[in-house]
C-alpha cells in the first residue's frame, strides 16, 4: 500500500522528455528496477543518473515519457528511489506503464509553472492536493478502478490477486 502523502525535494525537467532519454534501448534487456536505475537518464550526460538520487520527486513539463512504449522507463525511475512524478501532462503509454509499475503520477500543470529545482512539495493523494511554499494546487483523481491497481503496487500484484478461475 503506497503512502497517502508523498513529500520531498523536486528535480525539474522540461517538456517532451522521451522514454529513450529515460532509459536507452540497449538496456531493455533488463527488467530489474535497480539494474535499470544505474542507466536511467544517462543520455543527459555527466552526473546522471547519480544526481537524481538526491531528489524524491520528479516534476516535468508537457508530454513526459513520450515515444517508445517501453515499460522500463517507469521501472527505471522507480529504481532510482523516486517516489512520484508530477507533470504538466504525460504521454499515454508512460501514464499506463507508471500505474502498472506502481509509480505514483500526478498531472498538475499549475505546479510545474510554480516550482523550482530543489523546492520541497507535499502530495496528498487522498484529497488530490499538492502543497508548495504555502500554495495549494489541486489535481484530478484517477478513476477508482485504475487507482486500485496503483494501490496494490502495480498490475502484476493486481493480476495475481484477481486471477480468473482456472488460470
Amino acid at each position, binding site marked *: 500500500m503506497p503512502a497517502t502523502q508523498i513529500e520531498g525535494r523536486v528535480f525539474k525537467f522540461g517538456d517532451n522528455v*522521451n522514454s529513450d532519454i529515460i532509459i*536507452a534501448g540497449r538496456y531493455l534487456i533488463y527488467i530489474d528496477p535497480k539494474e535499470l536505475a544505474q542507466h536511467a537518464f544517462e543520455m543527459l550526460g555527466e552526473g546522471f543518473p547519480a544526481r537524481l538520487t538526491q531528489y524524491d520527486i520528479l516534476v516535468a513539463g508537457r508530454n513526459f515519457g513520450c515515444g517508445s*512504449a517501453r515499460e522500463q522507463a517507469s521501472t527505471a525511475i522507480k529504481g532510482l528511489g523516486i517516489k512520484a512524478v508530477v507533470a504538466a501532462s504525460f504521454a499515454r503509454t508512460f501514464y499506463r506503464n507508471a500505474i502498472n509499475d506502481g509509480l505514483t503520477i500526478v498531472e498538475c500543470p499549475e505546479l510545474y509553472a510554480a516550482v523550482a529545482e530543489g523546492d520541497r512539495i507535499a502530495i496528498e493523494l487522498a484529497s488530490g492536493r499538492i502543497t508548495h511554499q504555502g500554495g495549494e494546487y489541486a489535481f484530478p483523481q484517477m478513476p477508482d478502478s485504475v487507482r486500485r491497481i496503483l494501490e496494490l503496487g502495480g498490475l502484476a500484484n493486481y493480476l495475481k490477486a484477481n486471477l*480468473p478461475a482456472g488460470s
Partner: protein
Amino acid sequence: MGMTIAEKILASKSGAARVAPGEIVDAYPDVVMSHTATWRSVSVMRRIGATKLYDPERLAIVLDHISPAKTEKYAQDQQTSRNFAREYGIRKFYDVDAGIAHLVLMEHGHIKPGDLIVGTDSHCTIYGALGSLGTGIGYTEVTSVWVTGKLWMKVPTTLRFVLNGQFVIGVSAKDLMLHLIGRLGADGCGYKSAEFYGDALPRMSISERMTMANLAMEMGSKCVFVPPDEKTAEYLRPRLQDPATQYQPVYADADALYEQEIRVDLSQLEPMVACPHQVENTKPITEVVGTRIDQAFLGSCANGKYEDLAVAAQILRGRKVDPRVRLIVTPGSREILLQAMQSGVLQTLVESGALVTNPGCGACAGDGGTMADGEVSLSTANRNFIGRMGSPKSSIYLSSPATLAASAVKGAIADPREFL
C-alpha cells in the same frame, strides 16, 4: 449524436451500445501483439503464477528487434519467447527471419478493419492504415490481456484531418506527417484519436497510409484511422482467405463529434526534415540542404516498405552513393525483401553502393549501424531522439526515402526534386 470510429470500435469491443469521450471501458482486443519484449511478458506470467491464456488465437508474436540475436542474453530471451509460443500453440508466431511485427501481421492477414489491437510497441497506431484501432501498451499489461482477455481503455476525443490536393513530385506521405508533427507538436494529438479524410485519400496507397498511421504516433495519437475503401479491400483480398476472417468495416457517423478539424493542401507541401533531437523539430528541406551525413538508414515500420525501397531505387539507378556515406537498407519484412529481389530494386540498391541487411527493425532499434561521437545520420525511421542510434554525441535527421536517396548520392542532405 453519432460516434467516431474510435468510439464505435471501443463500444463494440466492450459490449456497450454507445460510449462517449472520457468514459473508461473494459475492452477485449482481437489481437495482442508482442515483439522482442515477449520474454518479459512471459516472466510476469510466471512470477504471478498464471498458466492459462484467455484465448491463444488472439496472441501474435514476432521477434523483430535485434534479430537474429547478437548476444547470448538476446539469444536466451528469444528462446524463452519461442518456447512459450510452442508450449501454448501460438499459431501467429513469427521468428527472427520474418521482419517487423507491424508489417508482418498486416501482410499475413492478421489485422482486419474494425479490429482492436494492443501490443508492446508505440507504433501499433499503424494498424489504422487498415481501419483498425491499434495502440501501444507495456509488457506487464500484455501479460494481463493474455490472461484476462481485456484491459481498461479511456475513450478518446477525435481530431479530423482533411487532406486535399496532390503531392508535387518528390513529396510523399512522410513529408506530410513531418509537416503535421511540426505544426501540431509532439503532443498535438495527445490522448486523442486521428481520422483522415479528404479528396487525396482514395489516391493514397496502403503503403502511404501505413506511413501516415505510423508517424501520427509522434504527435501523441492514441490511435489513427484511414477509413477502409476499395484500396483496403484490394490489399486484404489475397490475405484474408480464411472464411473466419470476414470483417465489417467501421465508419464514423455523419454527425460524429470532432474536437477540431485540420486541413492540409498537399500541393503546397515541400520535402520536410526532422532535425535533432525531437521529431517536432521539423524544417523545410531548403533550410537544411548541404548538412553533411555519415550514414543513411532506409528502413523501419515507417518507411521500410517495398514502395519506399522502390522510390529510393528510382533515384539511385545509375548513380553511386557518396563514398563518405554508409547507406544501410533494411527491408521491413521477408515479403518486401522478396518483392525487391524479384523487381530488381534490390540489385539497383546494391549496385549503387547500399549495404542490405536482413529484414527487421535494424538500426532504428539500435541493431547495427551504431553511430560514433559527432557522426550524423539521416534516417527514414520515425524517431531522432538523442542517442537512439548510438552515441549521445551523434545526431539523427529524419526524412522521406526520396530525400534519403538523394542525400546518400550527394553526401549531404539534398532536395530529391533535383533528382526526379
